């Protein structure tokens, strides 16, 4: 009796979960349908599986270029944030003076500032750097990565700081006595111990960089530099909406996310929980 009721509950839960993802189903089935079929019944399974709308969407979105752009920007951002934030946080934890405390406070106290408060003056600063220092900060991937690092610095330093505080200093002292430089101590001894928190920082950064729309929309104007989010936006804006093609385009943009989720699910869920709770 008890076992059957649990089996039924299990099935009901699975059905509820499937129902929750019904928007994904609707997107997927309609990306195969002809226009007539789509307007006739938006919820039914397609009668024929034609990949022509995917091909058309791929071409219009410039899919492989924008996929490459998004991947490049995301990977570089994550690498720089992990390397720079872990080094910074370690120094801030191991240095007990006013400057160190002040810097940590600067990182933490700015976390509440919404992006909208910074976006216009930030664009001015980037413009000045371009005009007076001749460093191309706008309309380049490098500039976008630079700004991403700045925006992700606070949360990354905060997470690393909390983690490093809990690891004992004895090992580092022993290595220093053995003649290891600070650089060696950090990279050979400390950084390997930060593995779990590094995964958390990396996951959070991947998600927020990959899904970011507003900052890239403000900085990138060349068509060839667009990220997936930007290309999706223009895809919907430039053409009067042909829904089957649009759904095929959206399906394409979700595929990389689903693959990432399938591979790293365990880490993603753990990373989200840790990133929020700390």
């Amino acid at each position: 009796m008890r076992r059957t009721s649990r089996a039924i509950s299990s099935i009901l839960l699975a059905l509820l979960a499937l129902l929750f993802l019904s928007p994904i189903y609707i997107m997927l089935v309609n990306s195969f349908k002809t226009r007539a079929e789509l307007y006739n019944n938006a919820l039914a399974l397609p009668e024929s599986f034609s990949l022509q709308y995917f091909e058309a969407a791929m071409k219009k979105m410039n899919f492989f270029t924008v996929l490459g752009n998004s991947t490049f920007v995301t990977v570089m951002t994550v690498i720089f944030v992990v390397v720079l934030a872990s080094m910074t946080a370690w120094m801030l934890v191991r240095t007990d003076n006013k400057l160190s405390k002040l810097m940590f406070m600067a990182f933490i106290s700015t976390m509440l500032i919404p992006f909208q408060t910074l976006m216009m003056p930030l664009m001015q600063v980037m413009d000045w750097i371009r005009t007076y220092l001749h460093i191309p900060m706008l309309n380049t991937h490098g500039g976008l990565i630079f700004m991403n690092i700045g925006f992700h610095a606070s949360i990354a330093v905060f997470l690393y700081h909390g983690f490093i505080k809990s690891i004992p200093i004895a090992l580092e002292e022993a290595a220093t006595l053995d003649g290891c430089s600070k650089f060696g101590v950090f990279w050979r001894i400390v950084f390997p111990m930060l593995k779990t928190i590094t995964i958390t920082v990396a996951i959070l950064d991947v998600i927020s960089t990959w899904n970011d729309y507003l900052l890239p929309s403000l900085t990138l104007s060349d068509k060839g530099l667009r990220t997936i989010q930007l290309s999706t936006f223009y895809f919907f804006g430039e053409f009067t909406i042909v829904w089957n093609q649009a759904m095929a385009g959206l399906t394409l943009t979700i595929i990389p996310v689903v693959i990432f989720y399938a591979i790293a699910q365990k880490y993603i869920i753990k990373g989200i929980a840790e990133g929020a709770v700390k």
Partner: protein
Amino acid sequence: MKRKDKLWFGLFTMPLFTIFTIVVIIPFIIGIAYSFISWDGISANPKVFVGLDNYVTIFQDERFFSSAGHTLKFTLLALISVNLLGLTFSLLVTNGLRTSKLARTFFFMPNLIGGLILGYIWKFIFTDAFKFLGGKTGLEGIFFNWLINPNFALYALVIVFTWQMAGYTMIIYIAGIQGIPDELLEAAKVDGANIWHRLTKITFPLLMPSFTICFFMTLSGAFKIYDVNLSLTNGGPVHSTEMFAMNIFNEIFGYGRYGVGQAKAILFFLIVALVTLTQVIITKKKEVQM
């Protein structure tokens, strides 16, 4: 501190701190200055100091106030629906059922997809799939194009945001639930407490830290919503779903009123800080010590 140590300190911290200063601190300070200036964003045109005029303008800006109203209404509705659903999901998947893990995976999935894309998917659902459902079921009072009705367009925004965030709060609630010792709930069961009592007398009070985090995340997320807003309704119909963030963006980059827009942006920061900090203080007070 020895000279060598100072050098190492600079070498380790300065690269990130410099970038952070250029990207966050300097724009924040300049941003405050910009809010006292009248300028149209064209560098050849003069920037005129106008004192508090921009702030006065905001208080006469009806569209800003109505956008504040929508944001408030949206945030309240979203706060309730996201947390209700997230909490329900977390209770469902911590029951030890065989399909728990699968359900958890599915419930969290939408959170990984960018807000812009979520908005476009639902745009199709609210316009076409709903029209189809309405014709098919005869329930045209529920299933019609929500996005052309000012009230329903706001609810549509709440639904999409809930779909995005429920799984996120679920993860945080699960972490909280797993931290509650089993013996506590077992003991209550032995003493004859029913499921409702176990929830309200044991689980919920011990979940207060999770409530603090989830409320904070939902509040700040809802207040700052932009991507979903842009792709789902673009503020329409007739500005009825134009949230704070979009109003600021349009003021600056749409109408080229950089000074007024920046003053709004500063005000926006103050409101976000005030609301979220107040909320954290209130819920922190309610947390119980074990």
